[in-house]
């Protein structure tokens, strides 16, 4: 399990960014999720995707944290930070667009943000994303549609 965690750590952290919408929270969440994964290593069924299992653990850990604190995020209660890309990347048009899109996605409501992330970044099928998030496929599709409309409008507004 330790090897599995090490191999998927960067992607797990990125998923934590998608979950929390913030880098600094992702740093803490990924750490907590790794610990949970070690504690639950015996429950992992070999033959299933370790990465998806880790994603679920991060998700549950995050939900528990939110529930415990009874804090609602994504409703404008918490200031959203830009998730800046590592510096040192040349400011090409491509990179500027990628940065804009990334920040628009992190500002989506959590449910849409996660669905967009799983399907468009991690390449999950609708069915896999639905299973991962424990929602019907129809909900995956409607979340994607809403997110696409929002993102499309925002990007349209930033075009020269």
């Amino acid at each position, binding site marked *: 399990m330790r090897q599995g965690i090490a191999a998927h750590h*960067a992607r797990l952290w*990125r998923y934590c960014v998608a979950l929390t919408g913030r880098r600094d929270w992702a740093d803490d969440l990924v750490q907590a999720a*790794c*610990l949970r994964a*070690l504690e639950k290593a015996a429950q992992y069924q070999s033959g299933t995707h370790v990465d998806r299992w880790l994603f679920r653990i991060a998700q549950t850990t995050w939900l528990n944290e939110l529930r415990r604190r009874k804090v609602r995020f994504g409703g404008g209660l918490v200031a959203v930070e830009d998730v800046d890309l590592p510096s040192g990347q040349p400011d090409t048009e491509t990179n500027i667009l990628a940065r804009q899109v990334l920040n628009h996605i992190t500002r989506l409501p959590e449910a849409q943000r996660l669905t967009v992330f799983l399907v*468009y970044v991690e390449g999950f099928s609708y069915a896999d994303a639905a299973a991962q998030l424990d929602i019907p496929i129809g909900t995956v599709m409607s979340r*994607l549609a809403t997110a696409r409309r929002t993102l*499309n409008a925002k990007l349209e507004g930033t075009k020269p």
Partner: protein
Amino acid sequence: MTRPAQDFTDADLVAYLDGQAPEELHKEIDAALADDPSLAERLAGLSLPMDAVRGGWDALLDSAPPAPDLSPVATAPRPRRRLWAGGAFATGIAAGLAVAVFTGLGTAPPPPAPGWKAVVASYQSLYGPNTLTSAPAEAERTAQLAQASAALGLDITDLPQAQGLDFRRAQVLDFRGKTLVQIAYQSDAGAPVALCIIAAAGPAPKEMQAETLEGLAATSWNAGGFAYLLIGGEDPEALAPGTAAFEDWSRGA
């Protein structure tokens, strides 16, 4: 007969764009597109620069923090910035196996820290059949035993060979500030097995006790001021020869 464009929901169109629409729906949208330019506009309103979507998130991977040291016997806790007051969210990794994650103010106190056998068992449960497939050269393994002997204060360089257990390596670990030596073996059946030795709390010997820890067969005993734990595999019978050999040795038989 072409379906009118307004029949399609945005979710249908997104599935079409994502190549995840059922074949029939896909064909219907294709047909409607040829008839009704407004449908193309709706599709344009839902389009995204997918390369940029992936590119932004992929670039983020480069700035992921390094994977933490997850060895359960990692030493001193590393204090971390407390992100949320009262939460244990930012607790150091090392303390992690000992404390429940997310025990915060107003919740139940953390359970008592597990004993050394539980921690070893939890560590051992992470070993798989491929963990110990290769072993360092014999000279290095001998050196490891000498180093472990020095750290432990007990000469283990003359540990007996146990039937069915092939010696792979010796490591000096740390359990809450106490030296813990782990001698790893691969069993004939391919199971990773470890003999762990730590200074006992007192000099009194203890009878051998067999148990199951984390689903693993285990035997433990105290002798000569040291506590011993032999653990690995699921078959208690398979541990018997090793237990006999190491216990006899530890009692000076």
